[in-house]
C-alpha cells in the first residue's frame, strides 16, 4: 500500500526507486574498497553537506552563500569537544551540529527578512563575519594554525584506521540523508515548497512563511554541521578554510552540478567534485578554483538541471504527464503581494 502511494506520488515505477536505493546503499558500503578511504569519507561528508544545502536551495528556494559558517563552526566545536572531553566522537559531532543550528538561528532570522539575491548576499556576508571571528579568536580556534590532533574516540573501538572510520561515520551520514529525505517529503516539506512557489498565497493560507524558512534554514545548518563535524574528525583537524567563502562556493557547485532540487543529485555532485579535486591535488595542480569556477559556468549556461535532473528528465515517464518539465526553480520574489505598489 505504501509502495503504491510512493509510486503515485513520484510517478516512477516502484522497482526503479528501490533499485536505485539498493544501488546507492551498495555504493556507500563499497566505496572505501575502491577509493583511498579518507577520500571516501570526504565524499560522505561533502555529500551530506550538499544534500543539506539542497534541502534549502532546491526545496525552499533559498540560495545560501554562507553555508561554510555552519560546516566550519561545527568543525571547530566538534574538534573542541573531542579534544577536551574525551567523549565518543558521535557526541562531539552531535554537539558541533547543535552549535551550527544555534548559529543558524540568528543568521537565519535576519537573512529570511530578505529574499532572492539579497538572501545570498546577506548569508555570504554573515559567513564572512564568522570567518573573521574564527580568525580573531585564536585562543579557541587556533587561528591560522587551526585545531590540530582531533581524536577519533569511540570506547571499545580502534578507529585510527581510516577504513574502519569510514564505517563508523557512515551511519551518521545515512541518518542525516534519511532525515533530509523525510523532511523534503513530509507535509512540512510541502509547505516549504508552497512558500517557495507562491509566498503570498502560502501566507494567505495562514502559513507564517518566514518562520517556515527559518526552520528549514536551521535544519539545513544542523545537517551541514553533522557533515562538517565528521569532516573535522576524519582529518583530525579544523582550519579557517572550513569557514572561508570558498567552502560555501564549493557546496553550491556540488549541488548545482548534481541538480538542484533533486536531493540525491547532490551526492553525485559531491562525489564528482571531491574526486576531481583529489585527483588535481595529487597531480600537483593547485588552482582548484579554475575547475570549480569552470564547472559553475558550464553548468549554469548549458545544463541547469544538473546531472541527476538531466537523467531524470530523460527517463521521465512519458504517459499522461501534461505538466511541462520546469527548469529547477529558485525562489521567485513575486513582487511581494503584501506590499502596496507605490504610485
Amino acid at each position, binding site marked *: 500500500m505504501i509502495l503504491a502511494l510512493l509510486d503515485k506520488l513520484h510517478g516512477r515505477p516502484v522497482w526503479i526507486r528501490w533499485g536505485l536505493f539498493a544501488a546507492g546503499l551498495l555504493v556507500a558500503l563499497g566505496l572505501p574498497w575502491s577509493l583511498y578511504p579518507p577520500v571516501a569519507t570526504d565524499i560522505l561528508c561533502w555529500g551530506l553537506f550538499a544534500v543539506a544545502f539542497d534541502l534549502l536551495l532546491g526545496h525552499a528556494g533559498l540560495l545560501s552563500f554562507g553555508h561554510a559558517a555552519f560546516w566550519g563552526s561545527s568543525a571547530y566545536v566538534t574538534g573542541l569537544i573531542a579534544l577536551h572531553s574525551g567523549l565518543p566522537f558521535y557526541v562531539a559531532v552531535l554537539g558541533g551540529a547543535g552549535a551550527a543550528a544555534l548559529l543558524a538561528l540568528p543568521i537565519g532570522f535576519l537573512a529570511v527578512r530578505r529574499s532572492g539575491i539579497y538572501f545570498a*548576499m546577506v548569508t555570504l*556576508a*554573515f559567513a564572512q563575519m564568522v570567518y573573521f571571528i574564527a580568525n580573531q579568536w585564536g585562543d579557541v580556534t587556533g587561528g591560522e594554525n587551526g585545531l590540530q590532533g582531533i581524536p577519533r574516540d569511540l570506547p571499545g573501538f580502534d578507529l585510527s584506521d581510516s577504513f574502519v572510520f569510514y564505517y563508523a561515520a557512515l551511519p551518521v551520514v545515512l541518518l542525516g540523508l534519511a532525515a533530509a529525505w523525510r523532511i523534503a517529503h513530509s507535509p512540512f516539506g510541502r509547505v516549504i515548497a508552497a512558500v517557495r512557489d507562491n509566498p503570498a498565497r502560502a501566507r494567505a493560507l495562514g502559513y507564517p512563511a518566514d518562520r517556515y524558512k527559518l526552520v528549514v534554514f536551521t535544519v539545513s545548518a544542523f545537517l551541514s554541521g553533522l557533515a562538517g563535524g565528521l569532516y573535522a574528525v576524519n582529518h583530525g583537524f579544523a582550519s579557517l578554510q572550513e569557514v572561508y567563502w570558498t567552502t560555501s562556493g564549493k557546496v553550491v557547485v556540488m549541488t548545482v552540478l548534481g541538480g538542484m532540487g533533486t536531493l540525491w543529485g547532490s551526492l553525485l555532485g559531491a562525489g564528482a567534485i571531491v574526486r576531481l579535486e583529489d585527483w588535481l591535488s595529487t597531480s600537483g595542480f*593547485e*588552482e582548484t578554483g*579554475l575547475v570549480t569556477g569552470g564547472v559553475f559556468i558550464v553548468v*549554469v549556461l548549458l545544463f541547469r538541471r544538473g546531472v541527476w535532473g538531466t537523467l531524470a528528465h530523460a527517463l521521465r515517464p512519458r504517459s499522461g504527464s501534461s505538466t511541462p518539465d520546469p527548469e529547477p526553480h529558485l525562489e521567485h520574489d513575486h*513582487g511581494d503581494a503584501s506590499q502596496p505598489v507605490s504610485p
Partner: protein
Amino acid sequence: MTSFLQQAFNGLVSGSFYALLALGLAVIFGMLRVVNFAHGALYMLGAFGAVALADTTGLGFWWALLLVPLALALTGTLLERLLIRRLTALDPLYNFLLTFGIALVCQDLLRMKYGAHSQPYERGPFTGSMDLGLFDFPRYQVFVLAVSVTLCLAVWLLLTHTRIGTIVRAATERPELTRAFGIDTGRWVTPVFGFGVGLAALAGVLAAPMRAVNTGMGSDLIITVFAVVVIGGLGSVFGSVLAGFTIGMLQALGNLYVPVLSQTSVYLLMAVVLLVRPAGLFGKEEPA
C-alpha cells in the same frame, strides 16, 4: 582629536573604494537585475592590469588609469554579450552563480601566473604627504578620495541631468513602461554593464599604488561591498555610494576605539539594518 580626524580621513579613503564598487554594482543591478559577483575580480584585474602594463610596456600610472579601465570595460561588454545576456531572462540567481564562477576562474588564472604573493607597484604619483591643517596626510590618498568623490558626483549628475541618465533611471524603475514609450532599453544594457565594470577596474588601478596587489584582494573586498549595498539598498545608487563612504569611515573609527570589532563592524551594522529596515537605508522593497 587629531587622531580621530586622521582616522576618519583614512576611512573616507577606504570608503572611496567601497563607493566606486557599490556604484558600479548598483547601476548594473538597476539596469540588468544582475548582482555581479565578478565585480571584485574585475577590481583585482584592474590592479593587476596596472602592474602588467608597467612590467611589459613600461607605461606608468596615468596611462594605466586610462587604458586599463577602458580595456576591462570592453571585456565587460563582451562578457555581457556572450554570457550574462543568455541568463537575464531567468532567475537573477543564475547570473549570480555565473559571475561567481567567472570570479573564481579570473582569480585562479592570475594565481597561476603571479602566485599568491603580493606584487609591488611603485609607480604611483603624488608621493609624500601634505599638510591638511591639523595633520599630515599622504598626498596620493587625498588624490584617491578626490577622484572617487568626483566620479560619484559625475555619475549622479549624469543620471539626474542628462537624457541618457533619464532613460537609464526610467528603465531601472519601470522597464515595461519605458519600453511602452518606445524607448529601446535593451540598447543601454551592454554600455551600462561595461561602464560599471570600468568603474571597478578604475578602482583597481587606484588601489595598485597603495594596497597589496594580490589575487585575494577582490574577493575580500566584494564581500564587504555586498554588506555595504545591503545596508545602503542596492536599488538606490545614491544610497549605495553614501553607505560606501559612511561604512569606510565607521570601520576606521571603530578600529580606533574598538579594535576587536574592526573586521566585523560592517556585518554587525548589516544585522542592525536588516532588523530595523530590511530593504536597506535608502532602498525600497522591491523584487530582487
